[in-house]
C-alpha cells in the first residue's frame, strides 16, 4: 500500500516570529548529585505554543553542549539568525506549535542566563567560579523538572527531544521521571561516552586550563582564556562534522591570496572556517562552563557500576525513538543502537532509525527532510 502524502512537511509551514526568553527562579536550595548545594538557581527558557487545559501537550527540547534556550523564532526584527532548531519547530512544522507547547531551557552549569560557574553566589557576593558544584546530566534534568512542574505547571510531558548532550538528557528524563514523560526522541547520542569522546574533551579542557588567562577559573569580567577556549572549540567542532561533510564544504579551497599575509595565516578555507568558529565561540560561551559541561558529558554513564545498560533503562516507560546518523563518528550508530538493544531486551517499546546524512554528529541541526518526517510521524502516531 502506498501511504497518502503527509501534510505538514509538504506545505509551507509558518514561522513563530518574535519570541522572548524568560527566567525561572528557584528560590529553595538545590542539592546536586554530588551532595553539594547552592541556595537557589535560575534557568533561562523559551516557550512556543500554548499549554492545553489538560496540561499534557508539552514538548521539552534539550539542547546540545554549546546550544541554548533559543531554539526557534527570532528575538527582534533585525535578528538575522533564528533559533537553532527553527526548521523543526513552528506552526505546521514537525514539532508543531499549533498542537504542542514547546519548552527549551538552558542548562544548569551553563552561561547563557542559567545559573553556572560565572553566576554570583548570593552567599558570598562573588562569582562561583571553581567553587560551583560539579554538575551532572541528572542535575540538569532535575532542574528542568522543577521548571516544568513548579514554574510552568506542566502535569505530564508529551515528548522530550534532543541530540548529543540533549539526547543524554532525554534518556535521563525517561529514567528519572518514567510516569511523567510519554515519548522520547534521543538522537546522535550515547549511554556513555567512549574513550575517544572523553579524550577529545580532555584536550579541550587542557587548552582552556593551560591558557595563562584562565587564572584557575577566577578570570574577571571580559577576560578569560580566550585562546584556549577557541582552540578547544575548533577541535571539538571537527568532531561534530565528518570527513565527507568537510570535503564537500571546503575541499582544499584556499582563501583569497591577499588575505594570507604570512606563512601560517589561514591558507585553506577550512582553516579560516575553524578560526571563525573558535573566535565566535569565545564571545558567547564561558570557559568555566565549558569545563563543567564537558565533565558532565564525560561522567554520564548509564551502564553504571554493573556494566549493564538494562539496569538503568528498564525504568523507562515512554515510547522511545532513537535516531542515529551514519556519518557521526563522535557518537556513532553503534552507540545509539546499544541504547535501543537494551531497551528492547527490557521489554520497552523502542524504535530505531539510522539516517544517511553526510554531515556527521551535527546532522540533526541541518536541513534534513528524512529527520523531519520521522519526528513528525513519531509525534503524531
Amino acid at each position, binding site marked *: 500500500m502506498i501511504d497518502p502524502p503527509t501534510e505538514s512537511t509538504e506545505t509551507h509551514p509558518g514561522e513563530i516570529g518574535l519570541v522572548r526568553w524568560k527566567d525561572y527562579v528557584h528560590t529553595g536550595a538545590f542539592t546536586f548529585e554530588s551532595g553539594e548545594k547552592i541556595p537557589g538557581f535560575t534557568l533561562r527558557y523559551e516557550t512556543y505554543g500554548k499549554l492545553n487545559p489538560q496540561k499534557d501537550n508539552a514538548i521539552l527540547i534539550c539542547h546540545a553542549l554549546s546550544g541554548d534556550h533559543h531554539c526557534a523564532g527570532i528575538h527582534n526584527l533585525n535578528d538575522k539568525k533564528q533559533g537553532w532548531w527553527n526548521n523543526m519547530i513552528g506552526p505546521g512544522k514537525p514539532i508543531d506549535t499549533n498542537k504542542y507547547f514547546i519548552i527549551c531551557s538552558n542548562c544548569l552549569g551553563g552561561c547563557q542566563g542559567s545559573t553556572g560557574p560565572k553566576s554570583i553566589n548570593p552567599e558570598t557576593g562573588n562569582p562561583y567560579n571553581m567553587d560551583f558544584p560539579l554538575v551532572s546530566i541528572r542535575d540538569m534534568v532535575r532542574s528542568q523538572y522543577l521548571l516544568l512542574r513548579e514554574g510552568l505547571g506542566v502535569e505530564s510531558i508529551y515528548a522530550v527531544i534532543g541530540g548529543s548532550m540533549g539526547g543524554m538528557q532525554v534518556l535521563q528524563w525517561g529514567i528519572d521521571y518514567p510516569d511523567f514523560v510519554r515519548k522520547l526522541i534521543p538522537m546522535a547520542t550515547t549511554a556513555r561516552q567512549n574513550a575517544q569522546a572523553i579524550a577529545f574533551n580532555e584536550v579541550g579542557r587542557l587548552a582552556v586550563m593551560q591558557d595563562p588567562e584562565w587564572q584557575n577559573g577566577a578570570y574577571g569580567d571580559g577576560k578569560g582564556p580566550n585562546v584556549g577556549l577557541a582552540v578547544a572549540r575548533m577541535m571539538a567542532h571537527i568532531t561534530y562534522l565528518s570527513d565527507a561533510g568537510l570535503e564537500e564544504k571546503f575541499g582544499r579551497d584556499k582563501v583569497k591570496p591577499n588575505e594570507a599575509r604570512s606563512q601560517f595565516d589561514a591558507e585553506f578555507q577550512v582553516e579560516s572556517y575553524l578560526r571563525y568558529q573558535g573566535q565566535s565561540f569565545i564571545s558567547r560561551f564561558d570557559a568555566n562552563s565549558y569545563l563543567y559541561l564537558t565533565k558532565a558529558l564525560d561522567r554520564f554513564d548509564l551502564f553504571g557500576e554493573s556494566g549493564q545498560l538494562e539496569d538503568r533503562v528498564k525504568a523507562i516507560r515512554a515510547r522511545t525513538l532513537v535516531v542515529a546518523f551514519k556519518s557521526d563518528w563522535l557518537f556513532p550508530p553503534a552507540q545509539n543502537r546499544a541504547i535501543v538493544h537494551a531497551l528492547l531486551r527490557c521489554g520497552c517499546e523502542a*524504535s530505531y532509525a539510522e539516517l544517511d546524512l553526510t554531515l556527521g554528529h551535527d546532522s540533526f541541526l541541518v536541513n534534513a527532510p528524512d529527520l523531519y518526517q520521522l519526528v513528525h510521524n513519531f509525534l503524531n502516531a
Partner: protein
Amino acid sequence: MPRHQIKRETDLQIISEWIDEGQSVLDVGCGRGILLEHLIRTRSARALGVDASLEKVQSCVKRGVPVYHGAAESLLEEFPDGYFDWVILSRMVQELAHPGELIRASLRVASNVAVGFVNHGYWLNRWSTLRTGSRPTNEVFPLSWDAGHPYNPVTIKGFNQFASKEGIDIANTIFLKGDWRQRTSFLPNLTAGYAVYHLRGTSGTWLSGG
C-alpha cells in the same frame, strides 16, 4: 481486489490466527508494518518490526508500530534464547542470501517461527521456466535477473528437506492453491502456490515467555 492485496490478507489471516493475546512478535522484513498494526490492534501483541528500508521504517513509525531500522541478522544476535513468542518470516526467505542462517537464528530467539514463502515448485512456475527457458518473472520477482533482485527459488519439497536435515519441529503447515485462497494438501509441491509453516523454536525462558 488486486492479487497482491489478496496475498497479503491471506498471509495476515493465517499468521494472525496462530498468535495469542498479548504475545510478543518480531516481524522480520516487516515492510510498512501492516501485519504488526493488525496484531497490535486485534491481539494486543507486543510488536517489533525490522526492516532495512528507511521509507518502510517511516511508515511503521507513522502507524505507531515499533520498528528497528537495520539488518535482521545482527538484531537477532542481541536477544537471548526464546525471547520472543513469535518470529515471522513472511515472504522473506526467497530474497535472502543465507536463509538457513536466519531461520536458525529465529528458532533460537523465539518459541514459534512462522515462515511463509512462494512455492517455486508450483506447476505454473515449473511450466514458465520450461516454456521460456529462463527464470520466471512474476509478482514476487517482478524484476529481471540483471536488475539484481535476489532470487532464491525455494520449494515446499526443498523446505521439508531442510527442516528434516536440521531436525526442525514443524507444528503446522498450510498450503494454498495458485489463487492463494483455497487450501490444498494433495501433492502440495506441485499444486500449492504459497506455503506457510509454523515451526517450533526455543522455549521461552526470558521475559516474553509469559
